[in-house]
């Protein structure tokens, strides 16, 4: 019996490109210094699962759900975060 072929894992994309309601797992964060520190302090680290729960009326900033809380960040800050979308 051949092993069950799992669907090819989605390729990494920028967090900005996640659609509303879509879940994803963080793979890397390329921000450094203050922004990088703040992002990590809030628990946005590789392996963390996030979900886009909404966007502000002008499509920016974006609201994310992490384990047990909601946080928001600007699109240009989300650009530093690479995620793999979950199906």
């Amino acid at each position, binding site marked *: 019996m051949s092993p069950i072929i799992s669907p090819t894992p989605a390729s990494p994309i920028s967090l900005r490109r996640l659609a509303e309601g879509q879940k994803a797992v963080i793979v890397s964060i390329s921000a450094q210094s203050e922004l*990088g520190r703040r992002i990590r302090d809030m*628990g946005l680290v590789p392996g963390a699962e996030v979900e886009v*729960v909404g966007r502000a009326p002008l*499509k920016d*900033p974006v609201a994310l759900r992490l384990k047990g809380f909601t*946080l928001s960040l600007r699109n240009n800050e989300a650009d530093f975060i690479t995620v793999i979308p979950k199906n």
Partner: protein
Amino acid sequence: MPHTTPIILALAGNPNSGKTTAFNFYTGSRQHVANYPGITVERKEGFLRAHDRDVRLIDLPGTYALTAYTEDELVARRGLTPGGPDAPDCVINVLNAGALERNLYLSVQILELGLPLVLALNMHDEAEKQGMIINCGRLAELLGIPVVPTVARSGIGLDKALAAAVQVSLDRRAAKSSGLGGAKPLDISYGPDLDPVIQEFTALIEGNEALCARYPARWIAIKYLENDSEIRDLVAAADSALDVRLAAGLEQVTRHLKSTTGSYPEAIIADYRYGFISSLLRQGVVTRQDELRNRVARSDQLDKVLTHRFFGPLILLGVLYSMYKITFGLGEIPMGWVEAFFGWLSESVSGLLAEGLLKSLLVSGMIDGVGSVMGFVPLILTMFLLISVLEDSGYMARVAYMMDRVLRAFGLHGYSVMPFIISGGIAGGCAVPGVLATRTLRSPREKLATLLTLPFMTCGAKLPVFLLLAAAFFPGNETSVMLIISLVAWGMALMIAKLLRSTIIRGESTPFVMELPPYRLPTLFGVLIHTWERTWQYIKKAGTVILAISIVIWASMTFPELPEEMAAKDDSSAARLEYSFAGRLGKSLELVTAPAGFDWRVNIALLGGIGAKEVIVSTLGTAYSLSEEDIAAVEDSDDTTSLQSRLRGDPNWNPVNAAALMAFVLLYAPCFVTLAVMRQETGSWKWSAFSLIFNTLLAFAVAVAVYQVGMLVI
């Protein structure tokens, strides 16, 4: 006797964790708020007795980590320095149990500092409703510290947490006096790349006693690897040879990591810290049931409406408008009482004293001056009350979230909108509470840009000037004139903000990354305490400065007195004013102000307006020698008919210099109360001075442009 010294406990935790609620519960009204010298972070302390001990409880600012980026974090860290002056015997760390993982990130860092810790797992009930069962006993066992479930809003578990902290403190003191040493700092592995470097660094740092007396050596090593600016400076100051060695080590490991993993030390440290926490929680601390309908979900439902693409901004407009209406509508009633009281005081004192300098000083100088400051108190009280409600409910964070995109274009922040509105973004506000409202802005550059541009708004005290001039020179078009003024105010504020942010307060925008806390019903006690603290600070600080300044203004309009031979000819108030120091200054300024079309009378009124904008119209009245009754009518009922006709009849006046004057009044130096609170909020007179000079020059340039172009056209 070591036992007689009070136990020092520090209260630490993330923003929105319920830390402030816990502090209010412990200390009630027996708390003391002050600002740290030179910075604007509030320092809160309370004294209480627990288990027959005097306890000094220090409330540290809410932070997510112990980095060195914001004032809040630096203050929190200073309060947690094991070798610092206020080193706590024990720290009570309040955690939001629902977001346990992120909240433990701070706890772990406190443990790394080697400070004794008690965890208060707050909102424990909500976490359970979210389907998250936390085994406190297991967490306590794994970390080796007391863990107490609490519900701060209703006070559940807080006494237990306090008792545990007092017990830990006493045990520690006993251990210390018997030479057993304190708590051992927590050691986390930071992986194969960093662990050897940390070890090497620690050994080197242990050679320096002064450093080790302040922080554990290993903690300094980790912070150095995180490239923490404060710690690097500390090491460099203590031992430059050590700093050189550590810097070389840091550079080497940074290069190595970059080439092998593409990462850098501070990122790896954060990853391992979170890794430590999640492995901790997996060891039977947290069990998750299926997500139930929870507060976060309910909060999401609310957000679907409150931050909706169309309804969100509409509701926001409604909230801002009613906030403004309530502040000035409701605040006006007690404001009337305060004004009536000072009016009565002024009359009684006038009646008691004989005509003369003492009476003039007391009444015109002191009582009127202090009265003008106290008159703002009801407004400020109401505004802080509403802001506290908006903040505590979680809506304020949504305001910032929705407005950020627009304001960021001008170098500002989503939170800037509220101060602008309060200052007169809707005509009739006041810059004093507006400046104080910038406290919600946590980003220093954006806060400064907001604070420096909000005086351009049409505050209530500028309105009578506009109304007077519009009625006198643009009859029938008053509404359009007022609309144009409001638009010019907003346009100038945003443009100048952009200008400042690309010149003297240049710099990257502060990261926006911000928690959107779940909506909650604010507690009455919390809101009241918050409001009172902020208002009292205003009364104390602004009150003292204003008293001094109003005496100076009074003196400059009174001295030198008219000599007798001149008084015999003309003893009118205008003649006396003209002869006074202010009058002479106004005259000599005519040379400068002529291109804007201002004569000496206008100059004096504008100078007085720096004291308080309300003074402009009444000083103009005095300078044009209106009878006492007419001045009273102008002051009391905004009935400016007599002054209007006086100005209209004056050959020196026309619509063009009226427009120039309106532009000048809109833009020039903020009043002294505003300057005083600016100093309070920025921590230095530097920005008040900047505002005074820059705004006046800007206003002058605009006024000259309006006058010169206008004169060409007509």
